[in-house]
């Protein structure tokens, strides 16, 4: 029974960046945090905001706005950090707001249209239409590709 449901629907966390809504599978989300004090890590790409102490684990933080090349803004009360667990690491994503948990039918997800905003198409795995909302499904494996050998040979 549950198997059938799982096949038909998918639970996602919906969050906001600028005026767009995005969704990621709830299974990989570990927690949603308010903004904690971030320690800057030098010599990393601009979208890596630094690291935080997440209950004893040093967790890197990525600003999704900068990752997508959007205009960055000051953090405010709505700003949230979504902690996601990928294969062998955890990363926190800074989003403007985390809105909702939704069940979306799998058949409502369509492959991405040719042009979706300004986001690089590699990052998008599909678009889901839920009511009047349009949710951009993110492909986190490419969004959060490990940062390697950051300018290590510069010096």
């Amino acid at each position, binding site marked *: 029974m549950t198997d059938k449901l799982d096949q038909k629907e998918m639970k996602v966390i919906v969050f906001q960046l600028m005026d767009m809504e995005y969704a990621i599978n709830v299974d990989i989300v570990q927690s949603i945090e308010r903004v904690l004090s971030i320690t800057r*890590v*030098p*010599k990393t790409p601009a979208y890596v905001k630094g*690291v935080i*102490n997440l209950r004893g684990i*040093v967790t*890197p933080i990525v600003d999704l706005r900068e990752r997508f090349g959007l205009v960055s803004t000051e953090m405010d009360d709505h700003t949230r950090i979504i902690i996601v667990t990928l294969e062998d690491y955890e*990363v926190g994503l800074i989003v403007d707001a985390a809105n909702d948990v939704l069940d979306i039918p799998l058949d409502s997800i369509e492959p991405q249209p040719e042009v979706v905003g300004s986001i690089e198409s590699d990052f998008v795995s599909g678009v889901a239409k839920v009511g009047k909302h349009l949710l951009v499904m993110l492909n986190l494996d490419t969004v959060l590709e490990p940062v390697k050998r950051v300018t*290590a040979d510069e*010096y």
Partner: protein
Amino acid sequence: MDTDQYLEMFIEESKEHLQSCNEHLLELEKNPQDLGIVNEIFRSAHTLKGMSATMGYEDIADLTHMMENVLDAIRNSRIRVTTEILDVVFQAVDYLEEMVIDIASGGTGKKDVRELVESLNAIETGKNAIISAVAETAVTSVLAEENGTVEPLLYDGYEMTVITQSAEQGFNAFEITVQLRDDCLLKAARVFMVFEILEKSGEIVKSEPKVEQLENEEFDDMFTVALITKEDASILKTKVMKVSEIETVTVMPITIHNQSKENEVEAAQNTGTVTTILDEAEAKKDPTEQKDKKNTGAHSGNKTIRVNIDRLDILMNLFEELVIDRGRLQSIATDIQNPELTETVERITRISGDLQTIILNMRMIPIETVFNRFPKMVRQLARDLDKKIALEIIGAETELDRTVIDEIGDPLVHLIRNALDHGIESPAERIAKGKPEEGTVTLRAYHSGNHVFIELEDDGAGVNRQRVLAKAIKSGIVSEEMAETMTDRQVAELILASGFSTAEKISDVSGRGVGLDVVKNTIESLGGYITIESKEGQGSLFQVQLPLTLSIISVMLVELESEVFAIPLTSIIETAIIKTSEIMSAHNQKVIDFRGNIIPLVNLSEIFEMPGTADVSDGHQSVVIVRKGDKLAGLVVDSFIGQQEIVLKSLGNYLQSVFAISGATILGNGQVALIIDCNALIK
């Protein structure tokens, strides 16, 4: 009896006892006269025997029993310690280890021990009374007391008074020595029964060993009780004999001549040497030995419990959350300015600081636990190979995280075997080369930066460039052209390549060329490196560098603008405050004169792309002088915060190898501080 629930405990404890046997046997080989060591081994073997008999592992019990007999003969000076005897005993310990391992992996722990039992038996029965030189000394007579010769107990002043007074009132004072049967399983229970009988008949003044030790079965088959009673000796004896599993009972009236020894005993007891009552004569004769014994006495008194490492991890993480909240509390207290609140928060801070130290230390274990099996291995291999080799161990106290310790053992075994087999030459060859006959292998461990280094150095033949290259070309690892241009170090490192073995004949000792590449792979999978330095004819140095996946290191916390960075103390030579005017320029590189050396200055603010650019220096600069090998550099910082012990944390797999940052740590206030990798800053 259902023993499954005790199995794990049995295995762990057996391993510990076997390890202790090994260590003490090696010690005994060096000091064959020291019967105190024999006692230690005896104790371990005895406990092992008891445990294995209870658990139903008869082969282990049989073997330990025979071992015990031999040890008993040694400490009674019936047998002299010789290498041959030790070989057999070592072999027995090996067998026992194998059996315990077999049990641990689900086996039955059965093994054919007949041959070994026979040879042990032969040693024991071949006791043609070779009295060793020690026999005359006081040690033996004291030790003999434990062994079964009935020796009078020693009493302190109070006990003495009680005995004399009761004698005046017409009571009899007896020393009752009870010998339990060898196969007695429930020793503590028998002791209890004997005590119960005696307490009904009179008053127990003293017992040897002490009551607690008796209850914990920390004694051999014999104990002595001093009793004040109105009953006479033969009645007491019959009563006690009614308890089952008792071999003999001796009842002796207490004599007053004991008093002469009273003072010495008191002295001995005050120093805490409970296990062996030292004669004063011996104490004077050899104060260092007494100290040793005191140490071992204290050691065996340590109580431990086993805790799953996962639980420690959870504890650690929970504690770190607590630290964050503590930080918040502190800032709230500062805001509210309520004296009571402030005081409480201060207390919490202090207590949690202590707690932190304890939790961190719990996870660390000295590398000794890996190293301590090597002396025996080297001894055995050296004998097998017919070489003379001394193993020197330095830095065994270096603490490592448990996870690394578990993994590092096998690679080290491979390396040591390799050094012994291929490195150290045979005694004849060594003499021909003008080297001392005995080869030296040094095993060294130390912390440096955020790494642990384990080095294995031998003064053997070193790597033969020609032979290695010829072999490598033959097995297709390198081409001839490449071989020409390779440096000596590169050539040396070829021996780590897979499918490589230069030994002309395959030996049992160090494999078939599958060894060293496995070592390399294991170490690399731990995130470490292995390098080889070798001088032909002079020896080789294998250096294993391992990251401290989680380890406590001492750092200097420094401030750069508002950010806090940690510099490992091991890299720091010293800190200095210099005048801006002392900074000189050489080829666009700022340098300073540091004690006669020109060293480059590294401006951390620039390298770490600090957002602020304001140069607020008031004519002075704070500089941390760091080193990499013998090269120095000065790191310019804004201010020093102080020294602190921190837990090293990785930045995770998302941020792989950030420049000049080797990791991060969580400060007391819950903030993350980055740890500077000085090695990357010095070219």
